[in-house]
């Protein structure tokens, strides 16, 4: 009996292959976007986790200096002699030729086994590791990058994260010029019981507990939340398709179901059969979606990796591995989503009156009550969005505003469109025009889901597009200010640096030191730069706020500038005292914008920097020279002075590089935008296709009254265009609101900077054309079908259905 029932129900799909394909493809696409995004996130998180455990030994507690200074080797020896089982680590960024990598110097003799994640089982490896010429343990990708950049021996380990290297502590000490100073001490889990008290033995040291989340994971949270939000949006749009397709399939099978029930199949048997069917469909589509998602993620991941590196300095490999956390949740989402979208249909089947006649369009007759409900819910959501945007705090509130805004706008759309159509209908005097508007309005419930999907996709495109373009405009202007020097040079060592300063004396207008130290300020490890007293800064530096005599205060050493990120994150204000590493402080006199930098930054006068941090590396300089002299000077620097060409960068190429990083950052967003639009286009296509199948009864009488099929086709095109245009117009304010939320709430939370909003109507036009093309494509098949309907069929329909 079950089998017979199943065969009867399944035969529906054989007769409607396009409907089946729509359902499967819709669900597969939605799952693909969701699981693709999750795959990217999972890969990135796994890589942060691995980096933290391998590089930072974060599974073990650590000792660090409270004010961010280095720990002296003497203090380490004292702790050891007092019985503490600690192991020293020296780490920092080091440049090998053109490549900059994170170098972690460890002492294999004392590092506890829990902190040693990379294997060098051979005695020969350990010998090389400890040898004065040095051995770097790197990932295969890093080894490739370092090829020819260093004379040191490389050992490849698959366990190493990219962009980092392990070396012996003596090598790190030498390369980073630390003079024995340690970045941190790893605390072994096994310790003697009768240890002295740490605060007496080593005042100033503080314990960082094991398992703290890596900085980079916190830093990139916002980015991954962004991706997740996009994935979820796409998934929601995809579910509209599934909902529409399943609803249609159930309605069309009402008569079959009724027959089966009449033949004695129990209600529960029918429900079970249908549920199994849905489950199988969800599984097939979900699996397909996961496969597509994998492909999509593989395509996007290199871009994401580049973004994360450029924006946050986080290293994520460009290749994807199959992790259950994303493919399983992807599949789970597909099944759950399908079940939710079909719940209403299943419910209707259960409550279906056994003897009522079939009403093929019953599903499309959205009752007046549900329309009212939608309207009220939509208004409520918009109200919540408004309230949240004024009162909410944090990234979650930002995304809450986004979600309420988008969902509310989508729910309001049918009411808005219906109002628009009523007005048009009232204004039409020609009966055919009045029919056109009335008929369009009558179709609205069937199309409204697809239109909502379109609205969401369009609004997301407008919003994200506006944000990106605003950002680009601000960023490019800011780059022009910030990169004022004509040439940027880096000496290879202090010796060369001092020769360079002398050499440049009569060749350049001004030589501006770009020196910086890393230290802990307000609990965050950040860069402290020193600037010279020079008009270059007074004229160009992009200050957001500042006292009038900012640059004098800096020059005399009394003041410091902080970047916007530090200002927002730590809530410091102009006039506050800023404690700096080494136990001194300056007052904050200004705030500058610092786009593209995930961390806080401090600028002080160059003399103060050199005074308090005499070990500062004095290798980098900005050179002011007349633009005409730049090419010659560049030539001389590499030729006469013999600097490697990668150590001499002119302003134009630096700007180009920065812009490259910027474009890369939003390449992924752009790609996801297009995918979302594709899903929405497909939703539109699916809905129109569905409607076209059941619209003959409406068209037949019009045709019989003398309207030609050609005119009917023209009407169909006009109807699609009218709906598309109305949706597009509705999407614009929603998109702009979205852009505002992104720029003034989400970005501030995620990146720590706020950008002015700029509006780009030309981009909207482009987007409108793309959406128009999608709408045009989606109507092609239904139209061909209409053209192909013979007069006899129209006649028959007219006769039979009435």
């Amino acid at each position, binding site marked *: 009996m079950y089998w017979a029932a199943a065969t009867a129900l399944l035969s529906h799909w054989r007769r409607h292959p396009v409907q089946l394909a729509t359902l499967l493809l819709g669900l597969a696409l939605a799952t693909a976007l969701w699981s693709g995004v999750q795959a990217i996130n999972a890969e990135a998180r796994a890589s942060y986790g691995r980096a933290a455990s391998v590089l930072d030994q974060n599974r073990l507690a650590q000792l660090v200096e409270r004010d961010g200074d280095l720990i002296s*080797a*003497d203090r*380490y*020896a*004292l702790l*050891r*002699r*007092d*019985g503490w089982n600690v192991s020293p680590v*020296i780490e920092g960024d080091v440049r090998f030729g053109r490549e900059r990598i994170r170098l972690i110097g460890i*002492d*294999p*003799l*004392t*590092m*506890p*086994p829990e902190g*040693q994640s990379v*294997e*060098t*089982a*051979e*005695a*020969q490896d*350990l*010998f*090389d*590791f*400890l*040898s*004065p010429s040095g051995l770097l343990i790197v990932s295969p990708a890093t080894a490739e990058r370092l090829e020819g950049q260093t004379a040191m021996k490389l050992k490849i380990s698959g366990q190493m994260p990219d962009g980092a290297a392990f070396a012996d*502590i*003596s090598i790190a*000490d*030498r390369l980073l010029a630390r*003079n*024995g100073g340690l970045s941190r001490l790893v605390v072994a889990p*096994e310790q*003697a019981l009768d240890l002295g008290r740490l605060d007496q033995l080593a005042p100033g040291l503080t314990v960082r507990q094991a398992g703290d989340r890596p900085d980079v994971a916190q830093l990139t949270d916002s980015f991954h939340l962004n991706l997740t939000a996009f994935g979820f949006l796409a998934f929601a749009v995809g579910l509209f398709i599934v909902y529409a397709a399943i609803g249609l399939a159930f309605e069309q099978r009402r008569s079959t179901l009724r027959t089966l029930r009449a033949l004695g199949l129990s209600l529960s048997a029918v429900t079970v059969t249908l549920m199994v069917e849905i489950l199988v469909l969800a599984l097939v589509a979900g699996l397909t979606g996961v496969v597509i998602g994998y492909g999509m993620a593989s395509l996007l991941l290199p871009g994401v990796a580049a973004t994360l590196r450029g924006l946050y300095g986080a290293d994520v490999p460009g290749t994807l591995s199959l992790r259950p956390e994303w493919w399983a949740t992807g599949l789970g989402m597909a099944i759950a989503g399908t079940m939710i979208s079909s719940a209403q249909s299943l419910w209707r089947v259960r409550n279906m009156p056994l003897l009522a006649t079939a009403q093929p369009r019953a599903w499309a007759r959205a009752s007046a009550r549900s329309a009212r409900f939608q309207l009220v819910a939509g208004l409520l959501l918009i109200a919540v969005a408004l309230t949240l945007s004024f009162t909410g705090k944090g990234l979650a509130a930002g995304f809450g505003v986004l979600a309420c805004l988008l969902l509310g706008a989508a729910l309001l759309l049918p009411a808005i469109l219906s109002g628009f159509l009523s007005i048009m209908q009232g204004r039409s005097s020609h009966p055919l025009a009045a029919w056109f508007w009335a008929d369009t309005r009558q179709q609205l419930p069937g199309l409204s889901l697809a239109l909502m999907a379109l609205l969401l996709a369009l609004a997301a495109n407008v919003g994200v597009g506006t944000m990106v373009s605003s950002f680009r405009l601000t960023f490019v202007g800011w780059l022009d200010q910030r990169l004022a020097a004509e040439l940027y040079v880096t000496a290879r060592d202090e010796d060369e640096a001092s020769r360079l300063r002398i050499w440049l004396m009569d060749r350049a207008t001004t030589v501006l030191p770009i020196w910086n130290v890393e230290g802990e300020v307000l609990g965050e490890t950040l860069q402290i730069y020193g600037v010279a007293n020079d008009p270059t800064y007074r004229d160009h530096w992009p200050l957001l706020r500042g006292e009038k005599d900012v640059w004098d205060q800096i020059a005399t050493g009394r003041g410091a500038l902080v970047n916007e990120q530090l200002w927002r994150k730590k809530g410091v204000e102009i006039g506050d005292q800023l404690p700096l590493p080494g136990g001194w402080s300056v007052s904050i006199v200004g705030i500058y914008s610092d786009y593209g930098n995930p961390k806080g930054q401090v600028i002080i006068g160059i003399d103060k920097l050199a005074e308090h941090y005499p070990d500062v590396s004095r290798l980098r300089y900005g050179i002011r020279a007349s633009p005409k002299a730049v090419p010659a000077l560049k030539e001389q620097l590499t030729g006469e002075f013999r600097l490697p060409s990668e150590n001499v960068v002119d302003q134009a190429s630096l700007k180009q590089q920065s812009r490259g990083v910027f474009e890369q950052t939003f390449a992924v967003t752009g790609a996801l935008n297009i995918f979302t639009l594709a899903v929405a286009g497909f939703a539109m296509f699916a809905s129109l296709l569905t409607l076209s199948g059941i619209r003959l009864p409406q068209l037949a009488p019009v045709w019989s009254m003398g309207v030609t099929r050609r005119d009917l086709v023209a009407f169909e095109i006009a109807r699609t265009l009218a709906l598309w245009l109305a949706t597009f117009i509705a999407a614009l304010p929603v998109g702009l609101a979205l852009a505002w939320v992104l720029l003034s709430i989400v970005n501030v939370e995620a990146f720590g900077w706020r950008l002015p909003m700029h509006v780009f109507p030309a981009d909207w036009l482009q987007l409108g054309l793309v959406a128009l093309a999608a709408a045009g494509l989606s109507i092609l098949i239904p139209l061909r079908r209409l053209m192909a309907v013979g007069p006899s069929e129209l006649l028959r329909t007219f006769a039979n259905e009435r």
Partner: protein
Amino acid sequence: MNARSGSSVWLVALMFLLALTGGSRSQGFAGLGTNAEGFSVPRPGQAFRFPADHGPHPDFRIEWWYVTANLQSADGAQFGVQWTLFRSALAPKTEAGWADPQIWMGHAALTTKDRHYSSERLARGGVGQAGVVPEPFSAWIDSWQMKGVQGSSGPLNNLDLTASGKDFGYQLSLSAKGPLVRQGDQGFSVKSAGGQASFYYSQPFYDVSGIVDVAGRAVPVKGKAWLDREWSSQPLAANQTGWDWFSLHLDTGEKIMAFRLRDEKGGYTSGNWISADGQPSALPPGSLELTPLSSVSVGGRDVPVAWRVRIPQRSFDVTTTALNEQAWMPTRTPYWEGPISFQGTASGRGYLEMTGY
């Protein structure tokens, strides 16, 4: 060489490495049989200069400060204690800071009848985590130390010795009741027929008192201890695979140091008979017979823990018994080291070390 992997993947074969120069393939036990390019080599006829020679010799590749003690509590329970600091140079020089090529390794052990506790420490020189200062004498690695007591007549005459591991520890006072003893030919100790040798002197006359901590229980003990000082750059021949080494405290007050370096043939034996007042008489190669009597499985290997030691020339013939046959040092380079007693033509206690099994 049969280095078993320890808990740390880095250091599976540290001893291998410690004795290596220029990354040549290791030979002999713990790589001690390799060439000594760049390092100083022991030559006969060089007199010791104290106290300087109590300190490190960075131009030699390996060196150790090695104390073994046979102890007894008031209720008659026997204990063995080992305290060892090894120095191993990657290059024949020393430098301040992390770049120092001198690597230090400490081994500490406490043996009871039923248990054998041990611990191992590693450190590099240059930063103060480990090292030796000749005067006032101090040898240390982490919190373990062997320290000269101020005001004593010679740097090594009175020593405080401490070490602790996860579940054991000891604090002992050592007091020398006799002179330093030069092993071999005035301290030049030949280790093979090919002439490989080391500088080697001992202080075998310590009386000991102190406390051993056995799994949290402090036990007062008394007994005898023996300090060995040895340094070289290449003490083993390439074909030598390990050694069996005895230090014996005879009840008469006499001491015997005896060893056999094993090779594919009969091995190379040598030793020293030390009178109760500290006068050494070398036991020439061949005058000493060391015969394993029975083996047990220790640390996964067959190790001979009972021996017959014969010195026909001295009418000395004893059989040794280990206090604890499982006195295995499960260190990065594993070996057997534990207290023994002996009976026969003479009786007493001592220490046995067996490597390369």
